[in-house]
Each structure stands twice: as structure tokens, then as C-alpha cells.
């Protein structure tokens, strides 16, 4: 692993700095997209459980669209296609963003909205797993729909879906690698660049593989702790009982 401490060809530092920079972008992109995905996903998941109207149908259309098109194709859509479809001036402004923002922003939107569709499905499943008595009791107590979801249904639904959310949280770090196709130099792209500069394939890819393993381990630990912290006595395991 001596490779890490050797100077880079640009003379600005060591390969370790490249890895650190790649890791930074991977984490930044994953956590930013996760925030977007949680907010949008929860909204759409809630909307899909509403009894009637146009909103549940729009929610379904959103989920089906974002789940049935590969992430890479969506990435190209936000990066290549969208600026062309917008009014010329806006499109130009997007295309002329300074690197790495020119690829980071489309990647952020893309990964956020893609993951939102998957979270929406889980939120919906969690809400539908609750006994109907919860809604009836809340209505009987005079809760308006908004506060019913916020105070009664969602807190329970989220406890039910925490294990599947853990999976999704670990997936988003891996999915950030797709952003390398639109020019973001995240972790995997860093490994490729180091390899191209040094031809030391095993070390370059080995280091990055280990970094991904550590990320997965930490992500799992974080979610496990959250799961433990929010556990309710009435939900003994939080997993098995709806």
C-alpha cells in the first residue's frame, strides 16, 4: 500500500489525497441525495395511501417511472437531455456550471429522485401494514389528516420499515459510483485514475474496495443504532409484527 504515499503526477500531493477527495464526493453525494430521497419519498409514499383523487395516481406514475428506467439512463437524462429541453438561457447556464458542480448537481438530483421512488414504496408498505384501527381511532379522536399522518401513522410506519431502509441507505453509497459516467470524480473514478497513472491495478482498486467495505459497515452500524434507539416496547422486535 506504499502507493498511497507516493506523490501524484500533478505534484500537488499524494495519492492518499486523491482517495480522500473521491471519498469526500462519494459521501457528500450519498448523504445529499439521501436527504432529498427521504423528504420526497415520504411525501409520495403518503400520497399513495390517500383514499381517492388524482394524487395517488400521480404518486404511482412517479414510482413506476423512476423504478423502471435504469439509474444510468436517468443520469444521462439529467445531465445531457434536460439542459436541451429547457429554455436556451437556462440550459446554457446549467451546462456552464463550474466543475465539479456541473456533474454533481445533476447527479444529486438524479440519485435523490431515483431513491425517493424506492423509499416511497417502502413508506407505502409500512403505512399499509398498520392495522386499520389506527386510522379509525385517530379520526375518532378528531385528528385532521395531516396531524394523523405526522403524529400517529408515520412514526409507526417508519419503525416497521427501518430494516428495509437500512438496505436502501447502504445501496445509495454504491449507487453514487454511477455518477462517474457524467464526470464526477468520486471513489471508483479515483481508483480508475490512479490505475491509469500508475498501472498498479491491485493497489488502486484494492484500497477503494476496502473503503467501500468500511462505508458499508459504518452505514449499517448507524442504522442499527437508530433502530435500537427508536424501538418501542410494544413493537418488541420492530421487524416481525405489523
Amino acid at each position, binding site marked *: 500500500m506504499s502507493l498511497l504515499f507516493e506523490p501524484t503526477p500533478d505534484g500537488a500531493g499524494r495519492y492518499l489525497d486523491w482517495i480522500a477527495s473521491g471519498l469526500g464526493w462519494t459521501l457528500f453525494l450519498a448523504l445529499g441525495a439521501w436527504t432529498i430521497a427521504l423528504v420526497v419519498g415520504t411525501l409520495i409514499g403518503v400520497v399513495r395511501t390517500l383514499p381517492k383523487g388524482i394524487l395517488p395516481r400521480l404518486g404511482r406514475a412517479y414510482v*413506476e*417511472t423512476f*423504478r*423502471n*428506467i*435504469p*439509474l*444510468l*439512463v*436517468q443520469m*444521462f*437524462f439529467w445531465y*445531457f*437531455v434536460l439542459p*436541451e*429541453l429547457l429554455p436556451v438561457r437556462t440550459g446554457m447556464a446549467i451546462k456552464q456550471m463550474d466543475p465539479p458542480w456541473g456533474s454533481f448537481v445533476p447527479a444529486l438530483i438524479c440519485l435523490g429522485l431515483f431513491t425517493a421512488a424506492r423509499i416511497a414504496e417502502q413508506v407505502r408498505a409500512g403505512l399499509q401494514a398498520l392495522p386499520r384501527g389506527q386510522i379509525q381511532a385517530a379520526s375518532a379522536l378528531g385528528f385532521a389528516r395531516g396531524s394523523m399522518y405526522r403524529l400517529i401513522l408515520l412514526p409507526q410506519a417508519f419503525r416497521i420499515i427501518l430494516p428495509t431502509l437500512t438496505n436502501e441507505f*447502504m445501496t445509495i453509497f*454504491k*449507487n*453514487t*459510483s*454511477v455518477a*462517474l*459516467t457524467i464526470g464526477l470524480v468520486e471513489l*471508483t473514478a479515483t*481508483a*480508475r485514475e490512479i*490505475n491509469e497513472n500508475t498501472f498498479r*491495478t491491485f493497489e488502486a*482498486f484494492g484500497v*477503494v*474496495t476496502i473503503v*467501500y*467495505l468500511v*462505508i*458499508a*459497515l459504518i452505514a449499517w452500524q448507524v442504522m442499527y443504532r437508530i433502530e435500537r434507539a427508536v424501538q418501542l416496547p410494544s413493537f418488541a422486535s420492530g421487524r416481525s409484527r405489523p
Partner: protein
Amino acid sequence: MMVDLSAIAATVPYLLQGLWFTLQVTLVGVIGGIVFGSLLAVARLSQHRLISTPAAAYVNLMRSIPLILVIFWVFFLVPWAIGWVTRSGRPVAVGASLTIFVTFVLFEAAYYAEIVRAGFRSISPGQYSACEALGLSKFHAYIYILFPQAIRNVLPILLTQTIVLFQDTSLVYVISATDLLGAATKIAQRDGRLVEMYLTVGVIYFVLCFAASQFVKQLQGRLAYGVR
């Protein structure tokens, strides 16, 4: 801007060629992935630590790293490994297709292994005891009794994973292979028609995956009534 339909029509044969490669990768990934994945699942359930630990390590490793990274690993390792096996002393150049087939079998096997393992665990323990009481060998018990039940119990999840695999094949773009997306990209860059090509490809993927996922949903409903 206007979308030019005639520009798309002329590219259909080349896109179909790309789609055919996408389907080939999917097929190889599904068959190879399920076979290797089932072996991994059985290995993980083994009582011998020497067998179960490496299988678990493999599955967890593969599930922790991005597919693109695995593609790069195989892309650089396979030529090297073939060179070593054939004792030619240096890496042997291999085509992109072989790299991709190997990658998808190795990678997807880890995901299929987890699904098949869940299937084995959903079978009641009585089935295992009954096999033993009937004097079936481990091999026969798995082939004739346990595996068919396990697969049936997780069939919808297996198929859903296959749709994910089908979408994942688009990532072969990173080594410039000509799958559906690769074909579209090559035309898009040649003709300067990024918008038309990427929208077309998006629609093709959507139609295929949507139809497949509706089929899985129906099957799920039918299986839920059919068994038990």
C-alpha cells in the same frame, strides 16, 4: 427543440442489436447467477465453518461494493488470470463480452444467494427432518425436496431481482460495450442526437421493465392464493 422521429427510425436495427446483447447478458447473469448463488446459499447454511464462512464473506463483500467497481476488477483481472492459468506469463487480451458475462455471474450470484437462502429458511424444519428420516442423501434432499420448495417461495423476489439485473446491464457502458444504452450512445455521439436517443432508450427500458414488473405482481397474487 423539436424531436426528430425519422432520425430515430433509421437507428432501430442498431438499437435492436444492442438490445440483443443486453438480453444475452441478462440471460447469462440470471442462469449463472442462480446456479452459483444457490451453491453459495447452500454453503452458507452448512454446519461446517470452513464452508459457510467463505461463502458468507463472498456474499457480503460483493453486496458492499458497487457493480461498476466489480466490472473494473474483472476487466483488469480476467486477462491476468487467463495469462496465469495458461502460463503465458503475461495478461491475455479478452473481449468485453467475456468480461461482462463473468462480472454479472459473480456479482448477481451474491444477490441471488441471499434470496435463495431466504427461501430455504422459509421451508418448515419438518421438511429437513423428513428428508433425513427417509434416508435421502444431502444432495438428493436438496435437489428433489428442498430446492424446488425454496425457489417457489421466493419466485416473485427472484424475478424482481432479475428486472434489477436487466437494468444493471446498462452499466457495461463504463467499458464501452455495445448494449442497448451503448448502441444509443454511439449513435447519439455520431449524429449529435443525444436528446432523441436517450429518450428513446428510456422509453424502451420503461416499457420492458414495466411489463415485466406487472407480470411479477400478477404472479405474486396467484402464488399467494395457490399455495396453502
